[in-house]
Protein backbone atom coordinates (compact mmCIF):
# COMPACT_ATOMS: atom_id res chain seq x y z
CA UNK A 1 0.00 0.00 0.00
CA UNK A 2 0.97 3.66 -0.07
CA UNK A 3 1.69 4.79 3.47
CA UNK A 4 0.97 2.74 6.58
CA UNK A 5 -2.24 1.24 7.97
CA UNK A 6 -2.38 4.11 10.48
CA UNK A 7 -1.44 6.80 7.96
CA UNK A 8 -2.41 5.83 4.40
CA UNK A 9 -1.04 8.17 1.74
CA UNK A 10 -3.67 7.50 -0.93
CA UNK A 11 -7.45 7.22 -0.92
CA UNK A 12 -7.43 3.76 -2.47
CA UNK A 13 -5.00 2.40 0.10
CA UNK A 14 -7.08 4.00 2.87
CA UNK A 15 -10.25 2.37 1.57
CA UNK A 16 -8.67 -1.09 1.61
CA UNK A 17 -7.36 -0.59 5.16
CA UNK A 18 -10.79 0.52 6.36
CA UNK A 19 -12.42 -2.58 4.89
CA UNK A 20 -9.84 -4.93 6.44
CA UNK A 21 -10.14 -3.22 9.82
CA UNK A 22 -13.92 -3.74 9.76
CA UNK A 23 -13.40 -7.53 9.88
CA UNK A 24 -11.18 -7.50 12.98
CA UNK A 25 -8.66 -9.83 11.39
CA UNK A 26 -4.91 -9.50 11.87
CA UNK A 27 -3.18 -7.96 8.87
CA UNK A 28 0.17 -6.45 8.03
CA UNK A 29 0.91 -3.63 5.61
CA UNK A 30 4.04 -2.83 3.61
CA UNK A 31 4.66 0.76 2.59
CA UNK A 32 5.88 0.72 -1.01
CA UNK A 33 6.64 4.45 -0.89
CA UNK A 34 9.61 3.61 1.32
CA UNK A 35 10.80 0.70 -0.80
CA UNK A 36 11.24 1.30 -4.56
CA UNK A 37 12.38 -2.28 -5.11
CA UNK A 38 9.22 -3.68 -3.52
CA UNK A 39 7.11 -1.13 -5.40
CA UNK A 40 8.23 -2.50 -8.78
CA UNK A 41 8.77 -6.07 -7.60
CA UNK A 42 5.23 -6.57 -6.34
CA UNK A 43 3.77 -5.30 -9.63
CA UNK A 44 5.89 -7.76 -11.59
CA UNK A 45 5.09 -10.60 -9.17
CA UNK A 46 1.31 -10.22 -9.40
CA UNK A 47 1.19 -8.89 -12.98
CA UNK A 48 -0.88 -6.02 -11.58
CA UNK A 49 0.19 -2.43 -12.33
CA UNK A 50 -1.35 -0.50 -9.44
CA UNK A 51 -1.15 -0.14 -5.66
CA UNK A 52 -2.67 -1.15 -3.22
CA UNK A 53 -2.62 -4.93 -3.56
CA UNK A 54 -4.33 -7.28 -1.12
CA UNK A 55 -3.16 -10.78 -0.19
CA UNK A 56 -5.00 -13.27 2.02
CA UNK A 57 -2.93 -16.16 3.39
CA UNK A 58 -0.35 -15.38 0.71
CA UNK A 59 -2.81 -15.43 -2.18
CA UNK A 60 -3.25 -12.33 -4.32
CA UNK A 61 -6.85 -11.11 -4.08
CA UNK A 62 -6.80 -7.91 -6.14
CA UNK A 63 -6.61 -4.16 -5.86
CA UNK A 64 -8.95 -1.67 -4.25
CA UNK A 65 -11.98 -2.09 -6.52
CA UNK A 66 -11.87 -5.90 -6.43
CA UNK A 67 -11.59 -5.80 -2.62
CA UNK A 68 -14.55 -3.42 -2.39
CA UNK A 69 -16.68 -5.61 -4.65
CA UNK A 70 -15.79 -8.80 -2.75
CA UNK A 71 -16.60 -6.94 0.47
CA UNK A 72 -20.00 -5.90 -0.85
CA UNK A 73 -20.96 -9.30 -2.27
CA UNK A 74 -19.91 -11.29 0.82
CA UNK A 75 -16.98 -13.13 -0.79
CA UNK A 76 -14.39 -11.30 1.29
CA UNK A 77 -15.99 -12.49 4.51
CA UNK A 78 -15.61 -16.09 3.33
CA UNK A 79 -12.00 -15.55 2.29
CA UNK A 80 -11.15 -13.90 5.61
CA UNK A 81 -12.85 -16.60 7.67
CA UNK A 82 -9.78 -18.74 6.92
CA UNK A 83 -7.50 -16.13 8.54
CA UNK A 84 -6.53 -16.61 12.15
Amino acid at each position, binding site marked *: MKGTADAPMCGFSAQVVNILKSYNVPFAARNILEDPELRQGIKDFTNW*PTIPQVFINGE*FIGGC*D*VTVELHENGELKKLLSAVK
Partner: protein
Amino acid sequence: MTTPGEIKEMIEKAVPKATAYVSDPNNDGEHFEAIVVSPVFEGMLLVKQHQMVLNALRDKFAGAVHALRLKTFTPMKWNEIKNQFSV
Protein backbone atom coordinates in the same frame (compact mmCIF):
# COMPACT_ATOMS: atom_id res chain seq x y z
CA MET B 1 -2.21 14.94 -20.65
CA THR B 2 -4.04 11.63 -20.90
CA THR B 3 -7.66 11.89 -22.05
CA PRO B 4 -10.61 9.58 -21.38
CA GLY B 5 -10.73 8.93 -25.15
CA GLU B 6 -7.16 7.62 -25.08
CA ILE B 7 -7.93 5.30 -22.13
CA LYS B 8 -11.10 4.06 -23.86
CA GLU B 9 -9.16 3.24 -27.02
CA MET B 10 -6.43 1.34 -25.13
CA ILE B 11 -8.99 -0.74 -23.20
CA GLU B 12 -11.11 -1.55 -26.24
CA LYS B 13 -8.01 -2.59 -28.17
CA ALA B 14 -6.84 -4.96 -25.42
CA VAL B 15 -10.13 -6.51 -24.29
CA PRO B 16 -11.98 -8.48 -27.01
CA LYS B 17 -15.36 -7.03 -28.08
CA ALA B 18 -15.23 -4.50 -25.22
CA THR B 19 -17.17 -1.31 -24.84
CA ALA B 20 -15.53 1.06 -22.38
CA TYR B 21 -17.17 4.10 -20.80
CA VAL B 22 -14.37 6.27 -19.46
CA SER B 23 -14.52 9.53 -17.56
CA ASP B 24 -12.09 11.87 -15.84
CA PRO B 25 -14.29 13.12 -12.97
CA ASN B 26 -11.69 15.52 -11.53
CA ASN B 27 -10.52 16.60 -14.95
CA ASP B 28 -6.93 16.01 -13.84
CA GLY B 29 -5.76 13.45 -16.40
CA GLU B 30 -4.64 11.22 -13.50
CA HIS B 31 -7.69 9.61 -11.85
CA PHE B 32 -10.01 7.94 -14.30
CA GLU B 33 -13.21 5.97 -13.92
CA ALA B 34 -14.27 3.22 -16.29
CA ILE B 35 -17.05 0.77 -16.88
CA VAL B 36 -15.97 -2.00 -19.22
CA VAL B 37 -18.46 -4.39 -20.80
CA SER B 38 -17.28 -7.49 -22.66
CA PRO B 39 -18.48 -11.05 -23.26
CA VAL B 40 -14.99 -12.37 -22.41
CA PHE B 41 -15.68 -11.62 -18.73
CA GLU B 42 -18.28 -14.40 -18.61
CA GLY B 43 -17.11 -17.00 -16.09
CA MET B 44 -13.82 -15.14 -15.47
CA LEU B 45 -12.72 -14.37 -11.89
CA LEU B 46 -13.21 -10.70 -11.01
CA VAL B 47 -9.51 -10.28 -10.29
CA LYS B 48 -8.70 -11.59 -13.78
CA GLN B 49 -11.22 -9.23 -15.37
CA HIS B 50 -9.63 -6.25 -13.67
CA GLN B 51 -6.15 -7.54 -14.44
CA MET B 52 -6.95 -7.64 -18.15
CA VAL B 53 -8.19 -4.04 -18.16
CA LEU B 54 -5.48 -2.60 -15.90
CA ASN B 55 -2.67 -4.24 -17.85
CA ALA B 56 -3.95 -2.58 -21.02
CA LEU B 57 -2.98 0.68 -19.29
CA ARG B 58 0.32 -0.54 -17.83
CA ASP B 59 2.37 2.13 -19.63
CA LYS B 60 0.01 4.84 -18.40
CA PHE B 61 0.29 3.70 -14.78
CA ALA B 62 4.08 3.79 -15.13
CA GLY B 63 3.66 7.46 -16.07
CA ALA B 64 1.24 10.16 -15.00
CA VAL B 65 -1.94 8.13 -14.55
CA HIS B 66 -2.48 7.34 -10.88
CA ALA B 67 -5.62 5.25 -10.76
CA LEU B 68 -8.58 3.77 -12.59
CA ARG B 69 -11.76 3.25 -10.63
CA LEU B 70 -13.10 0.19 -12.46
CA LYS B 71 -16.25 -1.83 -12.86
CA THR B 72 -16.48 -4.76 -15.28
CA PHE B 73 -19.61 -6.47 -16.57
CA THR B 74 -20.75 -9.07 -19.06
CA PRO B 75 -23.18 -7.66 -21.66
CA MET B 76 -26.04 -9.57 -20.01
CA LYS B 77 -25.31 -8.17 -16.55
CA TRP B 78 -24.79 -4.70 -18.00
CA ASN B 79 -28.22 -4.78 -19.67
CA GLU B 80 -29.80 -5.55 -16.30
CA ILE B 81 -28.19 -2.72 -14.38
CA LYS B 82 -27.12 -0.03 -16.81
CA ASN B 83 -29.99 2.23 -15.83
CA GLN B 84 -28.18 2.77 -12.53
CA PHE B 85 -25.30 4.45 -14.35
CA SER B 86 -25.18 7.76 -16.15
CA VAL B 87 -23.39 6.65 -19.30
